[in-house]
């Protein structure tokens, strides 16, 4: 089949052209060996072999901590002015693209989040292909989420087959004409693990008496790493802090975790999920069955981050393989 192709030795030129259009961020391996999405300076190649960054790209759309409202007694509550500059994320793997797609459904749905929406509008997503390792499970769990992108670069031995996935991507592709050649590729090895429509069987409620919940709870340290590093965990807590002048205040949201004691706690100290075993069932439900408006749509994109970062080596996957059998 015929594809648009960019040879590997033109990667720096490609990055140079992309940088003309905004701030370019890509996976980079730090001196501490941690791979992070970070600004990509001119002449530097991104780490396209790394399978996952420590934090997923959600950090660009939903920062760990941010001000969502400011108050002054003369102006009342005001949404912050978010100044967004065009941001190009290069080297996103399909799981992370699917993760952004999931967040879009949450934050751009019926009641769009204005701060998220303005950040998202400034984002260009350029994906690259990868091969799963022992932590990945995108290839084991067909997902109805799609790895939506503007451009996608399918790696081959000597370069990338480039395809567009959006009108913005078509336009961008046009500006890259000088780098692109047409090439015949033998097979269509696009290996997309997302977008396989999946009809979920009617699901019974998750059995609260399963011993697995208690077993997971016994080992869980409550460190929060699983959700911090999850591309589709978006739970946040909202706190309001008054100013010392007595006339102003700031309302913050920051990432939360459903395994924390405070997550389902309400005024007076009562909690909807008193113990960790209950909280694990809740977490499982979100990751493998979906809830709320997205009930029936599992949110796990199989990136493997939670498995890799859990200090106790906890993994919901074996349980999912048992409970979701026949679901695909």
């Amino acid at each position, binding site marked *: 089949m015929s594809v648009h192709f960019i040879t590997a030795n033109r990667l720096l030129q490609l990055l140079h052209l992309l940088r003309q259009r905004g701030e370019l961020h890509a996976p980079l391996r730090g001196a*501490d*060996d*941690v791979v*992070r999405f970070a600004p990509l300076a001119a002449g530097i190649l991104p780490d396209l072999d790394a399978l996952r960054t*420590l*934090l997923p790209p959600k*950090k660009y759309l939903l920062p*760990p*901590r941010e001000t969502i409202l400011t108050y002054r007694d003369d102006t009342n509550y005001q949404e912050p002015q978010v100044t967004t500059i065009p941001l190009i994320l290069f080297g996103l793997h399909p799981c992370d693209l699917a993760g952004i797609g999931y967040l879009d459904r949450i934050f751009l749905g019926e009641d769009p989040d204005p701060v998220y929406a303005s950040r998202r509008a400034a984002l260009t997503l350029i994906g690259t292909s990868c091969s799963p390792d022992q932590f990945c499970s995108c290839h084991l769990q067909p997902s109805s989420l799609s790895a939506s992108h503007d451009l996608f670069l399918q790696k081959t031995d000597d370069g990338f087959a480039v395809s567009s996935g959006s009108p913005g991507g078509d336009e961008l592709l046009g500006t890259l004409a000088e780098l692109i050649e047409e090439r015949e590729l033998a097979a269509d090895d696009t290996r997309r693990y997302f977008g396989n429509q999946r009809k979920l069987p009617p699901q019974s409620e998750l059995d609260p008496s399963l011993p697995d919940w208690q077993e997971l709870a*016994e*080992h*869980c*340290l*409550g*460190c*929060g*790493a699983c959700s*911090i*590093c999850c591309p589709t965990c978006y739970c946040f807590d909202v*706190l309001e*802090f*008054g*100013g*010392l*002048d*007595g*006339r102003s205040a700031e309302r913050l949201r920051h*990432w939360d*975790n459903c395994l*924390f*004691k*405070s997550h389902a*706690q309400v005024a007076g100290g009562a909690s909807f999920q008193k113990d*960790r075993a209950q909280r694990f069932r809740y977490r499982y439900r979100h990751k493998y069955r979906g809830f709320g408006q997205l009930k029936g749509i599992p949110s796990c994109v199989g990136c493997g981050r939670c498995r890799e*970062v859990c*200090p*106790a080596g906890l993994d919901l996957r074996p349980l999912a393989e048992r409970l979701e059998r026949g679901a695909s």
Partner: protein
Amino acid sequence: MKRLRLAIAGLTACSGCQLSLLNCEAELPQLIEVVDFHYFPMACSPALLEGEYDAALVEGCLSMPHENVLLLSLRKRSRLLIAIGTCAAWGGVAALKNGESRKELLQAIHVCDRISSSGYSPQPLHAFVKVDAVISGCPPEKEELLRLLAGLLRGALPAPIAYPVCTDCRMRENLCLLTEQSRLCLGVLTLGGCGARCPSMGVGCEGCRGPVPEANLEEALDICQQKGYDRQTVIDRLRRFCPEWKS
């Protein structure tokens, strides 16, 4: 807004928590406008307890009888009593040797065994009085202290923190010192809110903010053991700031 009438006292401690408040230099002019630091011997003289207080902020643990008298007086006079810092909250460094004989400790320090002391094993505030809120840390973060005062101005207590240092650390996209570098880091057992100050500089968490709610000590000890740190080493280190850790 009504000015907040405060008493700020230091018991057995290093005064570092009170100093943290005084180090908020940029905010001090604004603070003076809204807070009446009526009793704050470290910063203002003369300092005499008088009348009632909206809140008492107390640094340090109790180890001498006169401290009990002061603490009870502060409690009686104040609508709210807030423990400031790890010593007030948990006992802290002063309580490091609480498991050992006072007599032997006195002898080791004073050499001569004729010196008597009316002191006793250092205890946190909650061993004697009702504590309405805790700001942990050695010392607490400046921001926590300022937010506490801004909240008190409105009659609000700070929202308790329920997550460990690891949460702050992973949010900063740090390498995990314990699991990925096999270095002793107590972050997973320690109350967060410090922004993972030490691990972000490559220094393992020392546990200075005391235990996180629902700390999973057994699992953490197992992981530390796999990384080459035996139970006692880890427990001893935890107890430097909080004697309540049980082995």
